[in-house]
């Protein structure tokens, strides 16, 4: 893939060019952010094909709605929200999000999960991908993106209690995976 690079251009220049529907600027913006956004998509989706679909769908949305960006926050944050929302829409269409109302009694300490950071990103992702789509979405939104349970509840159309219980269950499942993971045993050992 031929990469068009122009390091002198900042985000505002890229945005202006894209709003003018200039293909060159659109390509530059894609080259700058596609890898990071693909990473976001991979965290929320089930496999590479789904992530690719969401990435493409997300960039089409970005180029269509770029004129609505008001430069009030960071551009990357705005982009990230679009890709997170697109991933959620993608899974909502497939009805993968399960609604769990019962709360987990087990309290999982964050440190139990934090050991994951010792692994490579690809391995962390492989472990997180073992979670069910509902747990994975809530875990990603809360732990990685920093959304509050209230925001998650609004975004997913569930109540706050469900969001909390999904997170607790996600952590519980992750802890069990970590405990049985040979990779982590080696890391700890």
């Amino acid at each position: 893939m031929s990469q068009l690079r122009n390091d002198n251009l900042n985000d505002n220049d890229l945005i202006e060019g894209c709003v003018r529907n200039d293909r060159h600027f659109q390509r530059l913006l894609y080259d700058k952010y596609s890898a990071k956004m693909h990473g976001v998509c991979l965290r929320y989706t089930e496999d590479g094909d789904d992530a690719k679909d969401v990435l493409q769908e997300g960039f089409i949305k970005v180029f269509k709605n770029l004129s609505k960006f008001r430069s009030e926050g960071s551009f990357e944050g705005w982009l990230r929200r679009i890709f997170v929302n697109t991933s959620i829409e993608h899974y909502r269409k497939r009805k993968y999000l399960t609604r769990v109302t019962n709360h987990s009694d087990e309290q999982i300490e964050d440190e139990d999960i934090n050991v994951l950071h010792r692994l490579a990103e690809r391995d962390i992702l492989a472990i997180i991908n073992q979670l069910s789509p509902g747990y994975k979405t809530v875990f990603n939104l809360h732990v990685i993106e920093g959304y509050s349970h209230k925001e998650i509840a609004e975004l997913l159309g569930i109540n706050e209690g469900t969001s909390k219980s999904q997170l607790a269950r996600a952590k519980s499942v992750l802890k069990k995976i970590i405990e049985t993971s040979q990779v982590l045993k080696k890391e700890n050992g």
Partner: protein
Amino acid sequence: MDKLKDKLLNYAVEAPDDSWDTIMHGINNTTSSNSSSRKISRYFLPIAAALVIIIFGAIFFINKRNPAMQIAKTNTNSLEKNMATFSSPDKNILAGSNDNPSKPIRENINNAKYITIANVDGNPVKISSKAASLIVSSDNQYPGRTVWNAKVNKWKARMLANPVTPTTSNFLDIADLTEALTDRNNSDN
């Protein structure tokens, strides 16, 4: 958890090679579908407006060409309404042979084979219910059948012009009537 968060938040994976082409294809399709829908709406509105004008114009023209039809329709409706709530003293005259004046006249007429009317002397006379419409037409209160009204008025005028009012019970009256009619025929010719 912060270390895990930082690691995954900045996780980047090169996007698939053909994603850019798909995105461009998607953008072009969106743009072309938008422009085609704009084209359709640009042509559709004037055509729709012209059709509406033509239809209303045609309706207006037809109504103007056949005012009698319109008047007859309106009058038939009002006649139906009036007959249903008929409450003048003539109701008794036009009442059916079952002598139930509380029933609407149209119902009485439809159900009865004969109706009873009062003749000029106030005596009851039984006539066929088919003549009910004719009797109603003789009353200018119901301008429903314009043609019949005109005919009945003409007959009324002729009958009033006659010096005698013949009755079927008197043979001499019949002879007088024959003579009067013969005279009238001669004078008409």
